């Protein structure tokens, strides 16, 4: 009940955040503008539109997750809205979970809206939208949940700006971790290989959630793959939230 109350409040508070609307505006503009770029390709305008729309959902979703997420806990400490809440018989981790749940709900709404708008637009222009398109959107959402978990962890530890930079770097690096899987073959040194392999499994691998190209080209993706990818994200996010709770537990506010 307490977690839910905090979540509900977080949701309402973030819905009022102006940054959210600016980003949404640009996202929607990108979605509706995708036709223009599609126009100059040879008969691939629908494919290009799907590419751009899904990329917009991902990019703006990440920006929202980072900007709102990194300020989330920090703003409460700064503005001391936190004091009266923590002075209740509420455990600190309940507070963290509530914040996370609220932001996740917000992102879910945003992702659904943007995906829906994109799908309707594409349908209106004569394209078809198949299952893989929505699977891609679902995995984008799961990716956003993981990014948010990072953001909340950083929010409990450091200032918003530093936190935002760190999470954004993690996002970029996390999309390229596959290199670590490919490189070991080029190494003769066993320890070197082991280190790279270790890094590959430890660093977050965001490319697991990326089926955008399949979605744009109408290539089917198995339900099993989607489920495994979601499981990966869930485990990692749970770990991060646990870490955030521990970090927050002993923090002097």
């Amino acid at each position, binding site marked *: *009940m*307490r977690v*839910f*109350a*905090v979540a509900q*409040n977080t949701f*309402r*508070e973030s819905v*009022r955040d102006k940054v959210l609307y600016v980003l949404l505006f640009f996202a929607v503009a990108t979605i509706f503008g995708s036709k223009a770029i599609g126009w100059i390709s040879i008969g691939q305008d629908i494919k290009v539109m799907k590419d751009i729309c899904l990329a917009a959902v991902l990019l703006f979703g990440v920006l929202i997750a980072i900007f709102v997420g990194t300020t989330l806990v920090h703003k409460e400490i700064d*503005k*001391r*809205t936190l*004091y*009266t*809440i*923590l*002075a*209740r*018989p*509420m*455990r600190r981790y309940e507070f963290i979970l509530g914040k996370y749940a609220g932001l996740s709900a917000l992102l879910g709404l945003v992702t659904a809206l943007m995906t829906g708008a994109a799908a309707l637009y594409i349908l209106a222009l004569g394209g078809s939208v198949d299952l893989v398109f929505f699977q891609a959107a679902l995995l984008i959402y799961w990716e956003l949940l993981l990014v948010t978990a990072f953001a909340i962890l950083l929010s409990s530890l450091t200032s918003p700006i530093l936190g935002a930079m760190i999470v954004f770097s993690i996002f970029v690096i996390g999309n390229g971790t596959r290199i670590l899987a490919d490189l070991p073959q080029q190494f003769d040194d066993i320890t070197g290989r082991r280190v790279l392999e270790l890094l590959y499994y430890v660093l977050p691998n965001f490319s697991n959630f990326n089926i955008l190209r399949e979605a744009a080209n109408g290539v089917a993706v198995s339900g099993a793959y989607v489920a495994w990818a979601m499981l990966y994200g869930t485990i990692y996010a749970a770990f991060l939230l646990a870490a955030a709770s521990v970090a927050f537990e*002993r923090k*002097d*506010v």
Partner: protein
Amino acid sequence: MQAIVTRELSKSYTRLGRPLPASLDKLNLAISENEVFGFLGRNGAGKTTSIKLLCNLLRPTAGQAAIFGNDTRLPEARRHVGYLPENPYFYEYLTPRETVDFYGKLEGLNAPARKKEWDRLAEMFNLGGIQNQRVRTFSKGMRQRLGFAVALVGDPPLLILDEPMSGLDPLGRRLFREIILKLRDEKKTIFFSSHVLSDVEQICDRVGILVKGRLMVEGRLDKLLERRVQLVEVILRGVDKTLEDSLIGQCSAVRRSEAGTHFFVTSLDAGNELVRTAMQCGATLVEFNPVRETLEDYFMHSQEAGSP
């Protein structure tokens, strides 16, 4: 059962590994149920630190504290506490009604209970008129009222208030004083900090004075001040010169005014003696004024005592 007990409660910070002087040094305090305790100190003396430690917003570097027998580090301890921080902040986009509703949910109250709480608190603090205005638009005084109302959600038996009167106009102060006294009548315990001595003087049973992180003085207000009766001013009428001369020996000063002759003696007993003698000689007692040290004087003394 004691409402609050602290034992050697301390908090110090370090900068780059080196310890700074303690913000709170070995606080030993016991607050009984149904008391109004005033916690005094200058800015930076450690009042807010103590309160935050009690509410588990800070972790102590040494010592312990318990609220109604529960260790303050456990969430159980906070079940019975209503906390009003200094400069309370609430979510800007909510209305007071939504705010109280939110805290009601945190307390685990269901919807009807929350509505009842709102009705009770809105009446108590005059929030009815502004119930749909967003907190963003509130003045300091309005926020303070809302803060106190929030602290009372769930009707907790112990109230911990950090500078509750700060920023209030005289009407607001009066309202708060009345509410605190009413709460005392309802058998609640109130622990509040302040640096406004007149507020404390008017409502507290006991006070504690914090100087540079240390509790210098603690005890019942009247007893503390009683000890330091500086002077007694006795105003008598109909004192002729002979009487005056005979009484002068016992006094530290004599003065004449329209009201009569003012005799200044150093204790209540001496004053009583003076009056008896004078009345036997036919003088009339106009006023008998023990000039007690005000809390302010007392406060200043303790600051000096605490300084090196």
